[in-house]
């Protein structure tokens, strides 16, 4: 791959087949993808196309049926704290406070350093004043912030986000997207972001990987060559969005 940054995640010839009731269901078909260091890549596809499965394989939670995933040149075999998977906000631990959640994965620091790091990420995601609150006392958007902060607090190189804002209301979702971009610019992580929301992918991604329906294969990779913050009514943005809509085969009139 050409470009200034080196390849962080390399996916080669990846396929996945599930066995259910004696039937073989092929969910992913021959995926090839390189993600560069510091890049934000959206994996976009319809429900059931295997995009979450792809993310789980890249994260080391599921084995591939064939093909390889390598990060920094080393094959992925199991989950690793250097690469953190962020679920929808339901992944926060309800028995821990905001602080307890954010500090959950922090190891090998003195108590003072740990407290300081937790405080840093509390500030980064804007949860000051809620340090001792339990998740059930928080809104969906706040819980999502806790989960992102919990992931960032272990200083991973890569974040996997699996439809992270899917359960939020549309206003909170917009706020969270710009928050994510702000954090991404501050922390410079490589991000793989799975979504079924075309607008979302065009608003945040450097590149959008469009998957076909099951078995998921790459139909097209769209470079979103727009600087942040993006003007959502600019002709270029609309043209990119419409080309993806067309790629997925949807008319954009209701």
């Amino acid at each position, binding site marked *: 791959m050409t470009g200034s940054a080196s390849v962080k995640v390399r996916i080669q010839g990846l396929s996945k087949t599930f066995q259910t009731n004696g039937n073989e269901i092929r969910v992913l078909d021959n995926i090839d993808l390189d993600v560069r260091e510091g890049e934000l890549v959206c994996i976009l596809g319809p429900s059931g196309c295997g995009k979450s499965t792809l993310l789980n394989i890249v*994260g080391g*939670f599921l084995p591939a049926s064939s093909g390889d995933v390598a990060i920094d040149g080393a094959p992925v075999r199991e*989950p690793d704290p250097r690469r953190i998977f962020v*679920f929808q906000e339901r*992944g926060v*631990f309800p028995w821990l406070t905001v602080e307890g959640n954010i500090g*959950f994965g922090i190891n090998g620091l003195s108590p003072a350093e740990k407290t300081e790091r937790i405080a840093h990420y509390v500030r980064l995601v804007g949860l000051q004043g809620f340090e001792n609150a*339990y998740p*059930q006392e928080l809104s969906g958007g706040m819980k999502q912030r806790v989960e992102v902060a919990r992931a960032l607090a272990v200083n991973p190189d890569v974040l996997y986000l699996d439809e992270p804002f899917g359960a939020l209301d549309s206003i909170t979702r917009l706020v969270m997207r710009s928050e994510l971009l702000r954090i991404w610019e501050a922390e410079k992580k490589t991000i793989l972001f799975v979504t079924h929301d075309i607008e979302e992918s065009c608003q945040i991604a450097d590149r959008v990987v469009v998957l076909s329906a099951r078995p998921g294969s790459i139909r097209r990779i769209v470079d979103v060559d727009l600087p942040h913050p993006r003007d959502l009514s600019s002709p270029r943005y609309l043209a990119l969005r419409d080309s993806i809509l067309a790629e997925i085969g949807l008319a954009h009139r209701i």
Partner: protein
Amino acid sequence: MTRPATTDDAPPPPTGPRALEAVLLPTLSAVVLIAIWQAAVVVTKTQIFPSPLAVVRGIAELSRKGVLGIYVRDSLFRVGAGYFLALLCGIPLGIALGWYSAAARAINPVIQFLRPISPLAWIPVAIVLFGVSNAAAIFLIFLASFFPIVVAAMNGVRNVPAMYLQAGRNFGLSTPALFSRVIFPAALPRVLTGLRVALGVAWIVVVAAEMIAVNSGLGYLVIDSRNAGKRYDLVVAAMLLIGVIGLALNTLVRQIERLRAVRWGFNAP
């Protein structure tokens, strides 16, 4: 958020005028109940069933003789010992069965077969094994509380959302750390529900066990008062004490369920 199935969810503690209501209404029903009781005794002119006042005198008499404290203590000791043993064995076994599905397939049918057998059916077996002794009663309490605790711990672990396990592994937890930092706290609300149910059953069973297997305790008081001179004032006094202590035990466990680290499993946000 998933809620463990509880049979009698209490409403959240009210505040302000509703807090007053929460005290006044149950007091009112108690007063009405006692009034009906008194009226029924007067109207039927019964010579056997005691009036509320006679029961209060009965409690005073038991207290004067010094048996009241001893009987309450003996009953609580038996429940405490049997329940603690059940907790000690039941929680680890339940967690193991919840985690290792092969072990559950082997052992769960046995548990499900033994569980519906009333602990009271074990009384003859308990007497054969332990004689008429404290140990027999404690054994029965153990049996009564063991099964609800095992089943609750097993279901608690089985129902830990896969997402929590995945997150725990992602942060590099070893299996023991995964148990102590994710699986146990995630299963705890269900385990506590099982503990509360088990304590209720244990209290019911101790009374029955004491009627047959030992010579002290509140259950013994009920049967002894009837046999030794048909002292129904003492029978009803013992019943009242059993009810009050059962209520107190339940309230005690409910306080644990209010702790912030487990409250998520009991109250909807």
